[in-house]
């Protein structure tokens, strides 16, 4: 790992000031992706700004028709939160499938979405649930937040503070894990928000998580597994790697979508 200066601001204001001033600075949340990349010297920064000491950023609450999850809420906090389980059980279920128990104890929702790994679980959920990312500067709808592989709409020094999820009528998630990394080889998140169905896919897209036109069109027939009978998902734009060719991924999207709907609650 290359050397860096470590900062541990006590509040958001101080963090923003640091990020505005410091050269080549990176925000550290749970560190479950950033630290391995630094260790392997795949990336390096002059300044690391650790948000750990900032109080209140891990809050989980329901306000009106929305579930609000603080950026520093760990995956284990989301997975076990009674509030999340009641509001959007599929989201708690998704969080319980990220990494492993020790990784879930450190990894955070804010870190996950800011990193936008194409095989991460959360991005698909944000897209399907029509969530809004609340940052230190603005509110960004999920559809505009994710910008391709490891790219987001976040500007320099902009920190994710919270994610707001409109509470759907029903939602479900099914994941077929990569056998080695256990990231999503294909993960499908489906949500019925009363106005129609949204379905998003993670792990499979060449450009990261995306909403599936084919699935959403098929689900117009109703939010039930039968609607997906015979649905053909195109392999174009999907990843091919040593673990899965694009056509296999396309097939799995159909299977996982059906299972997500079956599991939806």
């Amino acid at each position: 790992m290359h050397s860096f200066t470590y900062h541990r601001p006590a509040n958001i204001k101080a963090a923003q000031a640091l990020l505005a001033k410091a050269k080549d600075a990176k925000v550290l949340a749970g560190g479950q992706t950033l630290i391995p990349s630094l260790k392997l010297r795949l990336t390096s920064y002059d300044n690391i700004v650790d948000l750990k000491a900032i109080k209140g950023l891990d809050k989980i609450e329901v306000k009106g028709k929305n579930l609000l999850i603080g950026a520093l809420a760990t995956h284990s906090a989301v997975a076990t939160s009674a509030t999340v389980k009641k509001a959007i059980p599929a989201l708690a279920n998704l969080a319980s499938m990220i990494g492993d128990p020790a990784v879930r104890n450190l990894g955070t929702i804010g870190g996950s979405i800011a990193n936008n790994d194409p095989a991460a679980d959360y991005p698909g959920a944000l897209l399907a649930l029509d969530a809004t990312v609340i940052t230190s500067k603005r509110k960004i709808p999920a559809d505009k937040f994710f910008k391709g592989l490891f790219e987001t709409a976040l500007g320099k020094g902009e920190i994710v503070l919270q994610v707001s999820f409109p509470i759907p009528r029903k939602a479900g998630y099914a994941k077929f894990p990569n056998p080695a990394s256990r990231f999503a080889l294909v993960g499908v998140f489906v949500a019925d928000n009363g106005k129609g169905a949204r379905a998003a896919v993670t792990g499979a897209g060449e450009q990261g998580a995306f909403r599936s036109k084919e699935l959403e069109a098929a689900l117009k027939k109703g939010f039930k597994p039968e609607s997906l009978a015979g649905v053909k998902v195109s392999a174009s734009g999907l990843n091919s790697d040593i673990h899965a060719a694009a056509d296999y991924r396309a097939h799995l999207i159909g299977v996982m979508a059906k299972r997500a709907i079956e599991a939806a609650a």
Partner: protein
Amino acid sequence: MPTVTLKVNGKKHSVDVDPRTLLVQLLREHLRLTGTHVGCDTSQCGACVVHVNGRAVKSCTMFALSAEGADVLTIEGLANGSALHPMQEAFRENHGLQCGFCTPGMIMSAVDMVKRKGNDLDEETIRHELEGNLCRCTGYHNIVKSIAAGAKAMKSGAKTGKAA
């Protein structure tokens, strides 16, 4: 060099570290607590699992400086003096280890598992919860047995270690 102050196995330490120092390096190289091991560089093998503020974490994927003020429990602090923790005892009784390298991480994960999932653990739960711990020797068969037995033994009220 910045200083980190933390409690390890009930004992307070203040250590000057290069910011790059990982928690596991602080434990192994600065405090010479070499029971916590490093088996990979992608946070998957789990040989480095310790408890930070009562929760299992991979100490190879946390900066030492991030552990400021934390209460850390390692394998060396698990036993109560010469009385082994019931999970340690269960691993020995059920032949849950061979080369012993993954064992500290396995035991720390197992204790955390019991805290989260209770004392009655079925095989499927144990296997699922071990997703973050690799063992190359045992085929996990006897690790699963050890954890089920250790979880039951923890119920009967044997004392745990020096930190929460």
